[in-house]
């Protein structure tokens, strides 16, 4: 299994002087392609910051972070944006759907930067919503969907650009246990069925149990890596 991510001594600090806070303090991690990895830890441990670094939303303050061999710290905003668009899918705890757009439009909006015909964009959105079993909810607004359905729309949106990695930040945090299990099962199926790399952040060890590998994050440090 080739390495998708390589992290060596990655540090992320915020602020300066006395107010400086170290969110990630020297992380070493290798994530293989097709791996289902769970980052677990309590709130404020730095796992979301680490996920944002993996998602090319931010640059490390120190250390080396490479995606498919490319050092992310040296990339410009435009290149990071393109990387997010072409290789990375993101799923958020609070779904982050646009409330005024239908399920179909919420998926299609991820394809807005891609040069393709409107009909093809719509077709792709429908196909993805079909894969998460929401083909009957295409025209519904987020407010008309359950939490689980909203998260499935968010997963469909994250898959719109055929990413190589799916980063999920507490994807079950706003869902009941049963619905959360459905979502985890869906992510698991995507990883196993399509070889998609999944990095999942959770504070729920039961959810983490579905992963191939679990890494615990505490005070910005990766304390241990445990095989699932």
């Amino acid at each position, binding site marked *: 299994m080739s390495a998708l991510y390589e992290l060596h001594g990655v540090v992320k600090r915020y602020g300066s002087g006395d107010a400086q806070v170290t969110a990630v303090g020297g992380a070493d991690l290798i994530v293989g392609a097709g791996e289902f990895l769970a980052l677990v830890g309590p709130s404020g441990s730095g796992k979301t910051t680490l996920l944002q670094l993996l998602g090319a939303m931010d640059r490390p303050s120190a250390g080396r972070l490479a995606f498919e061999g490319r050092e992310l710290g040296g990339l410009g905003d435009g290149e990071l944006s393109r990387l997010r*668009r072409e290789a990375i899918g993101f799923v958020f705890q609070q779904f982050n759907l646009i409330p005024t757009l239908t399920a179909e439009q919420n998926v299609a909006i991820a394809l807005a930067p891609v040069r393709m015909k409107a009909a093809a964009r719509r077709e792709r959105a429908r196909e993805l919503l079909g894969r998460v079993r929401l083909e009957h909810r295409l025209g519904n607004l987020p407010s008309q969907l359950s939490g689980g359905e909203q998260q499935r729309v968010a997963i469909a949106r994250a898959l719109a650009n055929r990413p190589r990695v799916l980063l999920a930040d507490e994807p079950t945090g706003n869902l009941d246990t049963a619905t959360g299990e459905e979502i985890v099962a869906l992510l698991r199926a995507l990883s196993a069925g399509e070889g998609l790399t999944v990095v999942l952040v959770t504070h729920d060890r039961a959810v983490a149990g579905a992963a191939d590998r679990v890494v615990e994050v505490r005070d910005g440090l990766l304390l241990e890596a445990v095989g699932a």
Partner: protein
Amino acid sequence: MVFLSYAWSELRRRRGRTFLTAIGLGVGVGLVVAVNALSAGLDEAQDQVLEPLTGVGTDMTVTRPLTRSEGGGFGGQNLSPKEREQLRDEAGPGRLDLAGAGKPGETFTRTNFVSAAQLSFDADEVGRLAALDGVADAAGSLTLNALTVSGTVPEGGFQPPQPGSPQAAPGPGAQRQSIDLDAMSVTGVDASKASLAPVTPSQISDGRYLSEGSAREAVVNVAYARQHSIAVGDSVKLGSKAFEVVGLAQAPLGGTASDVYVELGRLQAISGRKGRVNQVQVRATDADAVPAVAKAIEGTLENASVTTAADLAQRIGGSLVDAKKLSAKLGTALTIVALVAAFLIAALLTLSSVTKRVRELGTLKALGWPQRLVVRQVTGESVAQGLLGGLLGAAIGVGAAALVGAMGITLEASVAAADGPRNQGAGPGGGPVIMGGPFGQGQVTSGSTDVVLGAPVDLTLLLIAIGLAVLGGLLAGGAGGLRAARLRPADALRSIG
């Protein structure tokens, strides 16, 4: 399509903010439309006052005014001996010489055509002026005062006129009551160039205009006709000749007015001024050519004085002018303040909207939206608000303009007399009073008139106004969009973790 449906849905979601932004821009733009419509209305009102005397802004009046020296003679000008002689004949002492009026006790009537304020010149000068570059046409005219003296020759007879005195004085023992003096201003016009003449067909209020090559036809000023109970079909006497009154004319405010108008050749003949004129009406090819033409005329005709539309406009006063000045000063300031305020409101609301949408815009950036797409989205929504504001502003402006029109506001335009000694005061019934030089030359209708204020709105103004609102939206959106684009997705989404 995604861009449009997203923008539309966002504008609908934030109805209140969208409406508030549109209202802000709309009020600013509406004010621009209203102020400009009012300004156009004031321009129209002023044109309405000036139009009868200035045509389309291309007309000029050329005269050769004379100043009187302290001793009562004519001085100051560099006149040739021949011209001085001409002037002496036309206006010097002796023109009212009644010494030979008859024997004491006999009745007499004598009419003299006099001029003093303006020197006449050869009618050939009209052709020279017409040939100047930038001149479309020119027409000469002759304005004189017909002084009719009648009465009984006094016992002592009449003394010859003294230098500096315009008329003969009765001799010792003469009774002033036995002499009547009737003054009437009369203008000879070139009827073949009626549109350029001091009286034009458009000024005829009753009857008709002089026919070309007419025999003895006259057009009489309405005020003079009323004063002397003259109607169309009656006759007026100039010297020993009777002229049939074919029309009555209303003198325009600020225009040159005479009591009676006859054909130029007729007046030249009966006044003994064959081939002479003392006024030329010149029409320039276009308004822009007027200053150059005026300069050329002054260089061509010695001692010429050129009165342009601009000169006449400067003599218009009253609430019309006050309103125009107010419009020019306060209106412009108000427009600028309103637009700046509207743009600021739009910009602040857009920035505030961006702040409220940090998570949403951060999500889009996390999904890989490039900066330009985020800027386009925010700016597009803002431009749509601007368009809405523009339409709203256009409606507000048109409504305000319609209200002004419906109110029927009247403004007063008054015309001051030209420089020089003038008779002041209102005419009968508050109407215009004829102001002129000591002998009626260069008479100007002074007084006031009311014009109804309108506020015309043309399509170009509306398009400009809508364009301004869209520009406001664009600027506000640009500011908001750039702020949104600079957001780092990690910062925007931090509250999630």
